[in-house]
Structure formats: C-alpha cells, structure tokens
C-alpha cells in the first residue's frame, strides 16, 4: 500500500522539529555538565605543550624511519654488491707439450672459427665462439669467420643486433627492475642457457663499465651482472653460468643476498652444484664441474691476494673430494680411443665409432671429451688424471677435428669451442693468444 505523499512530508517536518528540540535540550545539558568549560580548560593546559609534543613526534618519526631504512636491507635483496670493476682472470697454469704440440694446436684451432651466416648465425654459437676466441681476435686468413669485436658488438649492442637479425626481432637484452636480462631459451636469437652469455662475457674479461646498448638506450655491463646476481635462485634449473659469473665478479665478497632475500655464499653455491647426481646438468654435467673448478681456482687466488678464501675449509675439502671422484669415474670410463660420451659417470662408449644413440653421437662425444679436458686444464694438479688419459683425449680431439668437414665443424662449432679452448689452455695460452698465422706462412 502506498503512503500518501502529504503524510511523508509531515513526517519529515516532525522529525526536523524533534531534532531541533533535541539539539536545544542537549546544548542545555552540555552546559550544565560543564563540558564546554572542560574543553576550554583543556585547550589552555595543552597549548603550553603543543610545540614540544610536535617536536618530539618529528624526532620519533625520524628515528623510526631512519632505523627502518638502516635495518630494512637485511630483509630484502637490496644489499650492496661490491662487484669488482673487472672480472677475475683465471689464467691457464700448465704448458704440457705432451698433451698437444704447437703444430697440432695451430692446425686444429685455425679451423674452429665461426662462419658468419648473417641472420642465420645462432646467438648460442656466437657467445660460445666469443668465449673461445676473446673480444680482440681477428682472422685475417679467413674473412668469413666472425671476429671478436663483431661478436662483442652483436651480443652487447642492440643497434648491431637489429642490423644483423632485423629490427623486428625480439631484442636480446631486456632491461628489468633488477638490471638487464639476456633473453634465454627462447629460440635461435636468444642465449642457449640462463646467464650463459653473461658468463661468456665475464670469462673474456668484459669490465663492468663496458658500454651495453639495449633497445631502450645505452647502459653498462654492470646491469647484466647485477641482474644475474639479484635474480639468482639457488634452486633454479640452470645455475652453472650464474655461479661462474658470481665467482668472477664478487670475490673477495663472500656473502650477498639473492632473490627472496636469501643470504648467498660460495659455500651454498658449491653445495648446490654438487647436489644433483651425475651426469645431470647441461653438457653432461660438465659445466657444473667447470664452475666448481673455477671456484677452487678463485679460492686459491683470493688467498694469494691476502683475502679470506671464498670457500670454507669443509666445503673446499668436499669440492676436491667430489672432483676427485669425478676424475676417477672419467678415468674408469674412457674409451681406448680417448673419448667419453654423455654416459661417462656410468660407462665407457661402447664402440670406437660414435652411434646415433642419444648420448653417444659424435656431438655427444665432442661435448663430453672437450669439456672434460677443459675443466681439467684449469683444475689444481691434484685433480688431474694420469697423463695417458689426457694425451689420448687430446689426440682423439685432434684426430676427430682433422676428419671433420668444414660444414661439420660449423655444425659442432659450439661443442668444439670447448675442445679448442681446452687444447690451448693445456699449452698455457688462451685460444685468442695462439698465433694462427704461422702455419699459413709456412704453408
């Protein structure tokens, strides 16, 4: 039933009147209660103190805010990274002619340059080749090979990257909150592994202030390194190159905060690297072994420089024991021809010739043998296998490379970059330091 409109308005008028009366009554009662007098008295009393109160509040607020800022870093990953201006250079320490002769080294390395295929050139091949040859290497005898400066340019300058791969290609370098990320595992125009490109740049000595150009503008290599460190999670799937980057840039700093605010240390990273069973990990776990070897070397170098070691004695001992056991397995499972395949922790390659079986292809053998020779070449002598093992392994590589066509060498170029680097390291040099023109002259 509808209420008559006139009745409603009368009701509202009544309500207003009641409210007015209530207000008058309440005002009268308030006066009788002395509330207004109390309020006035309160004002008088308080006025003497307002300035002191305000000043005290400013002081307290400043103290709390200051303490929050000062202590807050403990719970975030915003800790200061005391990065080295230049990465630690881990030099080869042996010159073993019995592993490979100068002539063999020259003739093998001369063929291992990366042919420039323009937009067809893989980023993963480029950073592998840069790692092998370094940023200054040129190949006057073979103009088709990508030079060091050109490889550096493609990896660190988006303008050059866009020229080679097209302006529409997704950029390789992506600025993010924690620094610059290198796009990885997203096709041929991205890095093949997480932090692989950054680690390669670190291994060839790229300083932090090296100019890097992204699609958004110029920056420095520091941004890439900081991203690697701040974004690192101990349990990420691929961790070997992140660990390597940190090993080359952080010491003598031994602890820092990773993502989640987790306090990182080289001890934790070494434990992580040794956690999974062999041969789990990229390239038959060999990058895990390489990263551990580099940590041992840097650990020694820190002591030589008068800094504390980066590994605790327990972890260092555990690392050496671990690598010793790896060496034992490698020695036990080497094929008489000198090679290993991807099943190296458990068995030797079954036949002299590589098969098409997963883990035993020629590529697998090149990976397993080249990588093993590489980390041994940098490892402390106590971790080396008997000389015969080294000799047969290096000679298997030399012979195999000799037998490969140029096309096959380009196909296996990334794998061979490790083998070629290993051969040079056994002669106390980096591949970029080997004189490749002498052979041409003598020819």
């Amino acid at each position, binding site marked *: 039933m509808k209420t008559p409109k006139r009745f409603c308005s009368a009701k509202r008028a009544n309500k207003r009147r009641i409210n007015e009366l*209530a*207000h008058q009554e*309440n005002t009268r*009662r*308030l006066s009788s*209660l002395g*509330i207004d007098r*109390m*309020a006035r*008295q*309160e*004002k008088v*009393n*308080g*006025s003497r*103190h*307002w*300035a002191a*109160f*305000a000043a005290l*509040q400013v002081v*307290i607020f400043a103290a*709390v805010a200051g*303490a*929050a800022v000062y*202590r*807050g870093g*403990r*719970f*975030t990953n915003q800790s200061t990274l005391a990065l080295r201006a230049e990465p630690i250079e881990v030099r080869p320490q042996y010159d073993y002619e019995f592993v490979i002769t100068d002539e063999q080294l020259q003739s093998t390395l001369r063929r291992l340059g990366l042919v420039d295929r323009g937009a067809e050139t893989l980023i993963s091949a480029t950073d592998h080749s840069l790692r092998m040859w370094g940023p200054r290497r040129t190949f006057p005898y073979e103009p088709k090979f990508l030079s060091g400066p050109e490889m550096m340019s493609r990896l660190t300058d988006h303008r050059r990257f866009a020229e080679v791969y097209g302006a529409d290609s997704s950029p390789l370098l992506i600025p993010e909150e924690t620094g610059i990320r290198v796009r990885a595992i997203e096709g041929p125009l991205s890095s093949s592994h997480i932090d692989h490109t950054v680690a390669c740049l670190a291994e060839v000595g790229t300083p932090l202030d090296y100019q890097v150009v992204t699609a958004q503008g110029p920056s420095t290599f520091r941004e890439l390194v900081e991203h690697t460190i701040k974004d690192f*999670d*101990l*349990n*990420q*799937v691929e961790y070997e190159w992140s660990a390597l980057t940190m090993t080359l840039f952080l010491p003598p700093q031994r602890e820092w905060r*990773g*993502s*989640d*605010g*987790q*306090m*990182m*240390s080289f001890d*934790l990273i070494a434990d992580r690297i040794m*956690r*999974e*069973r062999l041969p*789990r990990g990229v390239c038959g776990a060999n990058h895990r072994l390489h990263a551990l070897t580099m940590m041992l070397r840097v650990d020694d170098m820190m002591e030589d420089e008068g800094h504390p070691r980066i590994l605790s004695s327990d972890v260092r001992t555990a690392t050496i024991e671990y690598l010793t056991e790896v060496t034992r397995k490698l020695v036990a499972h080497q094929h008489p021809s000198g090679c290993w395949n991807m099943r190296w922790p458990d068995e030797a390659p079954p036949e002299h010739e590589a098969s098409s079986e997963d883990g035993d292809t020629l590529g697998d053998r090149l990976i397993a043998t080249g990588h093993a020779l590489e980390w041994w070449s940098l490892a402390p002598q106590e971790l080396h296998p008997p000389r015969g093992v080294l000799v047969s392994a290096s000679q298997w590589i030399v012979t195999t490379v000799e037998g490969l066509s140029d096309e096959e060498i380009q196909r296996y170029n990334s794998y061979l970059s490790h083998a070629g680097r290993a051969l040079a390291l056994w002669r106390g040099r980096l591949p970029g330091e080997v004189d490749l023109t002498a052979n041409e002259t003598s020819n």
Partner: protein
Amino acid sequence: MSSTSPPSDASSDASPESPEPSAGEMSADDDGDVFGTEASLSPKLDPRLALGAPHLIIVSVLSAVFLVANYLPLRGTDLWLHVLYGNWILEHGRLPQQEQFMPYSQGMEFLDTQWLSQLIIASVNNLGGAELLSSLFAFCAVVINLCLAYAIHQRTKSLSAAALGICLSLIVGWSRLGTIRPEVFGVICFVGLLALLSRFRSWPMERDDPNGGPALGWWIASAALFAVWANLHGSFVTGLILLGCFALGDCIESLWRNGSLRDVLSDQRVQRSVYLLEFCFLGSLLTPFGFDLPLYVALFSGNENLQEVLEWRPLVIQGVGGRTFAAAIVVAVVALRQSRVRIGVGEYAALIVFGLAAAYGVRMLSWFAPLYAWVLTPHIVSTVRVWTGFATATEPTDLESSAVATADTDTPTEPLEPSTSEPELATAGPNLIPPGRSFHYSLACLVIPWTAFALTPTATPLLGGGERTATQLLGEATPVGLSEHLSEFPVDGPFLCPQQWSDWLIYAGDENLQPLVTSNIHMVPRQVWVDYLAMLNNRTSWDGMLERYRITAVALDKASHGNQIRRMRRQEGWRIAYEDAQAVLFREAGE
C-alpha cells in the same frame, strides 16, 4: 539486559522491613532448624557472592568453550614445529639463528618471532604430552573470552552485554577456534589490550584532577603487555595498528572539533593516544631482535608463498568463515545505523581496517572477531533497546554521548542495563541481595564449570577415565602410522611429503627427517615452494624435480594425491616401503 524477574529463592524473601539475622547472629540452634519445615533459610555467605543471570550466561558460555576446545584435536597446523623449536631452544639454551628442519632454507633470513610461545608449548608438552597441550589451549580459549567479557563489561558496565559480546566473538571467529598454535597467545594479548583500552580511554582528561590521567602503572602495564606479546607472537603489530587507529581517530575528532592543527597538537586526548602508541611500540622492541622484529613482521605478510595458503587467502563467502563474516558486516551496518550510542572515529577506523584485513586474509578473523564484539556490542544492545522500546529518555542521545566521549570516554558512561554492581550493593545494606541476584545462580555458576571440567579429558588425571585414542587426540589427518614407520626406518636425505604432515613426522617420526617444506612456509625459498606445489599438484615431471632436490623418499596422502600415487607406482627406481589406509611411502630402490 538484566534479568527482570529474579527467581523465587531465599533472598527474595528477604525484605528491608524484616531483616534477617546476620551470619554472626545465627546460633547453633538456628542451624538445627534448617531442616524444619517452618524454618526460613537465610544466607550465610556475603551477599556480594550472589550472582545473576548474566553471570550464569557468561559462565555457561565459558564452560562450553572449555568443553568444546578440550575435544578439538591437535590437528596438523604448525603446532608440532613449535614444539620442535621450543625443544631446540631448551636444548641449546639460545635462540636458533636459522631454519632448522628444511634442507634448502639455508641463508633465508630467520627471526624466531614466537620463541616464548614455543618455550611454553614445548615445556607443557614435555610435562604432560599432547593431552596437556590440548588442555592448555582449552584454557587459553577460556582466558580469551574471559578477557573479552571483562573488556566489554568495562565499556558497557553490563554483564549481559559482556555475555552477548563473547557470543558474538565466538560466532564471528568460530572458524579460528580450532587453531591451536602460538596465535592463541597473540589473541590473548589482543583482548588484553582491548581490556586495557577500555580502562585507559575512560580516564578523565584533566591534569589537575587528582584522579585524572592514567597512573604510571597503566603506562607500564601497556608497554609490558607489548613486550610480552612481541616475544610470544608476531601479531603484536595488530595491537599497534589498533592503537594507531585510535590515535588517528582522536586526531580527526580533535581537528573536527577545534579546526586547527595547533589545537589538535594541544589536545591532551590526542597526545595521550599518540604517547600510548609510542610507549607500546617501545615495549614491543624489548625482544632479542630489537628493531628488526617489527620490520620482519611487517614484511612477513608480503611473502609470496603465503598467498597460496588458505588462511592467508581472501575470505570467500562460501568458504571458511565467509558466511559469518558477511552476516557480521550486515549486523554491524544495521546496528551502527540504529544505535543511539556514539561511535568514535577510532573505533570506526579499527573496525574498517580489521574488517578489510579479515576480508583480505582468513587468518585475520582471529583479531577481527574480538574487536568486532568489543566495538559492536554496545551498539547492538542499543539497537535492540530501540527496537524493543526499552530506550528511555535517560539513555544518552548521540549528541550528548558524543560530548561526554569528547571529554572522557568513547562510549556512554551510563550503563546499558540497570546496574547491580558495587554502589548498589553498598546501599542495599550488608545482608541484602540485590534484585536479580540469587545464590541459585551462584550455585549454578559453580556446578556448570565443574560439570564441564569433569566431562573434559583435562579432568582425567584427577577424576579418572580412559585416555583418548591417537585419532581422537590428534585428528584423523595426522599420519600416526607413517610416523611410527619412519621412527623405525628413518629416511636418509631430503624427503617429500605434504607440508601438513612434515612437522608431525619430524616430531613423532624421525628427528633427522629433512622434509622439503615444513609449516615455516615463509622460510621456503620461492623456487622450492613453487616446485613443491607443482609436484604435489601433479603439474610437472617428477623425474627432474625429484632429482633436482635429491629426494630420496616420498610420502603421499591417499585422500588427496591419488594421481601422484599412481604416477609414483609407475616411476622407475622407486618402491613402496610403507602403506596404510592413509598414506603411502615410496623410497628409492637403492635406499
């Protein structure tokens, strides 16, 4: 809300015209006549011990809470992890510096914010086992509601309102009743703060008034409460937020009233609220962690891992506690609209902040429920009185109560029910029992708690009775059989099991067990947590995951991981090492 029709009893016969002899005047002969049909009984007890219906309601509710809480199983919350940490502290005589039970949490920033609770829980457990723990938490539930009743009574001067308030709190927060963990100590402190605030905010403002301003003891008590609270549980931050709401409310009210910032800063009420907040904050720094603790707790709720845990998820109407929360909001809106009692800005702010917090995370219901009852009870009582026509001209109107509150309190100083408290007792004479009170009620107030106590397992050592079974005591979800197996055949290496089982399996199974994830979810590195969820939710390849974490044994719950169990049965290199109706344990074939 008082009882208006006292039952017929001995006291009702007593009238001012025919005073009964006092206890001192009664002779031995009088005692002999007690059994005679003509004898008139007279109370020997102090009339102040005569209680009323509201007392009976409160006692009955508290007894029911004690009874129900006693029978709640010690289900798989993080209780057993706290026992483990408490024992660790007792054993080592210091606080742990890092997470102790998860293999992959090294380096995670760890503050043992609940160390005092853990010590209490572990000590109680060592003293009387799980049964005593159960009794402890039942006792805590009673203390919480008793404190809340006191706090509401302080505000309303009404026992009926207090009874209504604890019922409201229980209804709104029922879903948290079964939470048996250090959080209950935090809730005790929270209601303690409400009680303290009920007193604190009712002190007169005049400095010259000899009775004015809270005594130093009250300030110290406030800071001490926070010092204890901060060592018991990280929820002390909720107390600071509550005080912040009141300080803010006082500022706004003062600004509204006075119109200038200078006047606000001069306002003694504002100053007192702010000083109280600061004093309590200072108290909360009295922990082994100093200033790091508030920072740690403030950042804690932002932990990404917690977003995947039910109690940190937003409330869902159809979900746990959702319906009662929605109903509570409706009741609040109606009550605040209809109530003739003034509500302060601070109370509004607190209600909104804690309401939003509860809507954002189920867990916050623990604090919202008592606050809701504390704030809303006077308004609900007022609303009922308005609706039922009990509102009288003497009841304070909005304006008056506002003005009174401005000077003195947040809520009306006039009681919401006819008072039968001390002043009336004093004027009623030494032997007169006030209307509405009776020794019958007093007797019932003794019998009901005793009955409740007698029916609980707490009474078993005193009154005898059988022990509860493991299932009754620990709940059906606790994997008792599996823990027995693990105690006999320990697992060497990282271990995957549902997080709800981890704490118990370490506690009762193998103390060296290394579960991938325990209840310290915020201490789990993000990647580990993501992988753990992917494995238990069957979203990933198990081969790689198990190897990445070097898992050597996997325990799965038949009720919720059927697919994963089928998958593991097919997994090469794994064998079933144990199976019962609840759980399956797989071990690596070489183990």
